[in-house]
């Protein structure tokens, strides 16, 4: 096949879905003849698919564990392509007047956290621990967006989620920044099976370039590494 | 409690239109060809079939009246019906089937079972009380259906060929049971039957329905004397001919003529009882004024007699003794002379 007709399949963690749409357009316009196909799902599901030979060229995971799970199929070391921040999501206008993690300990507050088994949950727990706050969550959602959705629908008063999640639904929730510094990192790597290793590399460069991909990620609330 | 009803059901192929009034304790036998509308009539009365027009009144109370927009549901009509296809509940035991109506009325389980058992005994299937209906023979199922309806003591009874599957001996004992029941508590009763003996022994009045209309409504004896349709004549085993009367002679519609003692002027029926048809190997010389050479089409035993179907110039059925069959050497296909005395011929206007 001609070099113009190259197809590059990116397996990306679900939380990247909106950013990926924009990244796709920009990358394709700067790489004529390249068709970027974005497949998004939970990092664990993507890892399982890759283990089973899914036709992926690049894997961007929210969870380093899942990258490790397919470590033998990666071409080169994983790179940090973006970082994210934990925030407290509250209803617009912050009616419960939450100022930080310490306010989450209030008894009558309906608090939702991501389950500790998923990366966001692990990060949240670490943040609470380092802030020395003890909370009694009303729900531990198996996925971050579920936690956010409960705040957006008014069911919960507060949830710890990624900043990028809040950015996507800015009209429904407000974000209260968390002081505790916890590094939430998205790692990306090319896969050995990729027929276009150099193009995969170009994409990873693109993602980490603060001028191009990085700028788009920043638009969606991510930070550059 | 009199049952008064007029059932009119309009179907694409058939309109059933029957008016009937049955006194308490009276039994009316409804007979008629297959597909005449007998079951349709009963369903209309009981409230489980369509009613295009008409009414049902029981003891003066209106149960249904299409014009008056009354239409009591079946469970409030207190009319018992034994369906032609039994319709036993397949998920209940025989006992459960018979106890069903009482249980539905709130009678306690044990009381209902006692009553049900008594009725099963009366109809002679008490030994099958604990099996499911699909393990019953045809005749047993029919008896259970009868018991199931009788046990609730309905205010009127509709029975659709209730003895059709009963063996001859059971048939006569079931007839007795029914007569007893009706004697115990008189109620209007309609029995559809294809059996002349049933009709004769149960009902003083026979209604014959043909193509949805009543063609006869009188005693069986009267119908036997003056049948007005081919089907009725065949039923009572009488030869029915149709013709044009002048003084004592009738010109038959199918050709041929008959001499009677007297005949109505104009279109009339001629009824000849099979026992009045005498058979001779040779042309008889005596008094009979009606003599035809005919061919024996079929021989059929009936009780202690034999029916001989004759064909040729006219169609006749004769009834003779088995002895005569042997003596005259009668057999199918043989040519014989049939003679009927003028005095034995009944004529009446059509």
């Amino acid at each position, binding site marked *: 096949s001609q070099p113009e007709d190259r197809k590059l399949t990116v397996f990306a963690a679900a939380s990247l879905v909106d950013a990926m749409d924009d990244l796709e357009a920009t990358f394709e316009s700067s790489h004529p003849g390249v068709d970027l196909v974005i497949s998004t799902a939970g990092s664990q599901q993507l890892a399982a698919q890759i283990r089973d030979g899914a036709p992926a060229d690049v894997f961007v995971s929210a969870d380093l564990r899942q990258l490790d799970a397919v470590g033998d199929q990666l071409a080169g070391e994983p790179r940090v392509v973006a970082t994210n921040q934990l925030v407290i999501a509250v209803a617009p206008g912050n009616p419960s007047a939450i100022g930080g993690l310490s306010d989450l300990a209030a008894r009558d507050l309906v608090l939702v956290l991501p389950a500790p088994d998923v990366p966001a949950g692990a990060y949240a727990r670490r943040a609470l621990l380092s802030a020395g706050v003890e909370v009694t969550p009303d729900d531990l959602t198996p996925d971050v967006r*579920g936690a956010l959705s409960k705040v957006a629908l008014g069911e919960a008063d507060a949830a710890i989620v990624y900043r990028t999640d809040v950015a996507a639904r800015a009209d429904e929730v407000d974000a209260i920044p968390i002081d505790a510094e916890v590094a939430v990192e998205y790692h990306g790597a090319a896969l050995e099976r990729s027929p276009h290793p150099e193009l995969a590399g170009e994409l990873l460069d693109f993602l980490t370039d603060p001028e191009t991909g990085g700028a788009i990620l920043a638009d969606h609330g991510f930070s550059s590494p | 409690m009199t049952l008064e009803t007029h059932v009119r059901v309009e179907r694409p192929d058939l309109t059933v239109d029957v008016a009937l009034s049955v006194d308490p304790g009276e039994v009316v036998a409804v007979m008629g060809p297959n597909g005449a509308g007998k079951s349709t009539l009963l369903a209309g009365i009981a409230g489980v079939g369509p009613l295009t027009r008409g009414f049902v009144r029981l003891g003066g109370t209106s149960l249904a009246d299409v014009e008056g927009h009354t239409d009591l549901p079946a*469970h409030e009509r207190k009319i018992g019906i034994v369906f032609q296809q039994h319709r036993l509940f397949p998920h209940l035991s025989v006992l459960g089937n018979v106890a069903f109506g009482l249980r539905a009325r709130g009678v306690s389980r044990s009381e209902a079972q006692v009553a049900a058992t008594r009725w099963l005994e009366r109809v002679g299937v008490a030994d099958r009380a604990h099996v499911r209906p699909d393990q019953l023979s045809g005749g047993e199922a029919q008896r259970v259906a009868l018991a199931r309806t009788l046990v609730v003591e309905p205010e009127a009874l509709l029975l659709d060929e209730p003895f059709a599957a009963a063996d001859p001996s059971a048939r006569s004992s079931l007839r007795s049971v029914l007569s007893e029941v009706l004697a115990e508590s008189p109620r209007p009763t309609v029995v559809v039957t294809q059996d002349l003996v049933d009709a004769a022994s149960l009902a003083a009045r026979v209604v014959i329905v043909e193509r949805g209309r009543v063609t006869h409504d009188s005693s069986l004896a009267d119908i036997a004397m003056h049948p007005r349709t081919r089907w009725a004549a065949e039923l009572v085993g009488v030869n029915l001919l149709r013709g044009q009367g002048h003084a004592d002679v009738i010109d038959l519609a199918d050709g041929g003529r008959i001499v009677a003692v007297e005949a109505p002027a104009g279109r009339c029926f001629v009824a000849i009882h099979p026992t009045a048809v005498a058979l001779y190997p040779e042309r008889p010389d005596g008094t009979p004024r009606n003599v035809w050479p005919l061919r024996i089409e079929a021989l059929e035993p009936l009780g202690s007699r034999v029916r001989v179907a004759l064909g040729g110039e006219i169609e006749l059925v004769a009834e003779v003794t088995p002895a005569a069959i042997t003596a005259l050497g009668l057999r199918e296909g043989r040519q014989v002379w049939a003679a009927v005395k003028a005095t034995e011929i009944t004529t009446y206007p059509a």
Partner: protein
Amino acid sequence: MRSRHTPLPVTALAVAGVVFLGLPLLALLLRTPWDRAAELLGAPAVRDALRISLIASILAVAVAVLLGGPLGYVLARGPRRLRGALRALVLLPLVLPPVVGGVALLLAFGRRGIAGAVIADATGVTLPFSLAGVVMAEAFVALPFVALAVEAGLRRVDPGLEQAAATLGAPPWTRLRRVTLPLAAPALGAGAALAWARALGEFGATITFAGSLPGVTETMPVAVYLELQGDPGAAYVLSILLLAVSVLVLGVTGLRVRAGR
């Protein structure tokens, strides 16, 4: 019963079906770390999840039967012009992605939902984050199975038998209880079994509407999902436990149902 040979194509396809279902089960069993099974199953968290799953799914089936059964009746017997709309309504939980179903439940019965707000104001009770919420979410997804099974079952009941019951003096309600429902029992049983299995495996609507707090609202499927993130072997063990429990329960009740006929 004589003359009931299984036709050859049926047998062949059934074997193919067994392979289709059996291979994944076999693969799962082969990958299951049996040596850790005892330890995993003994964990209090697992026992909690199993208990919540069983209680909630049984209550959910009860609700589904109570509300879905009558809906099935109306679908089969009710006014013809209502049927279209009713059928659409009944299909809703079936085709709606479960998570969306959960969102819809929150919009209706959540703290700020159109009915939930009224209930909360009046009684102070909120359904989400409680066992009642789990039951509600599971009943929501299970209801169509009951309704559609009851509809199909009722369509097969001979109206002649109901008429016979009526002429014996049985009013509609008695007829329904003593004739119609018993005759529709096999279909009803199948529907309830499907509904129960579906409720037991429910995941998306439950986590969205009721949450998944261990010991309160976390059901087995949620536990399995979470284990899958880090410890797939444990997830397999729990899955097989779920399967075993459901086969056991359905086997026992199925036997009871059949023996009672």
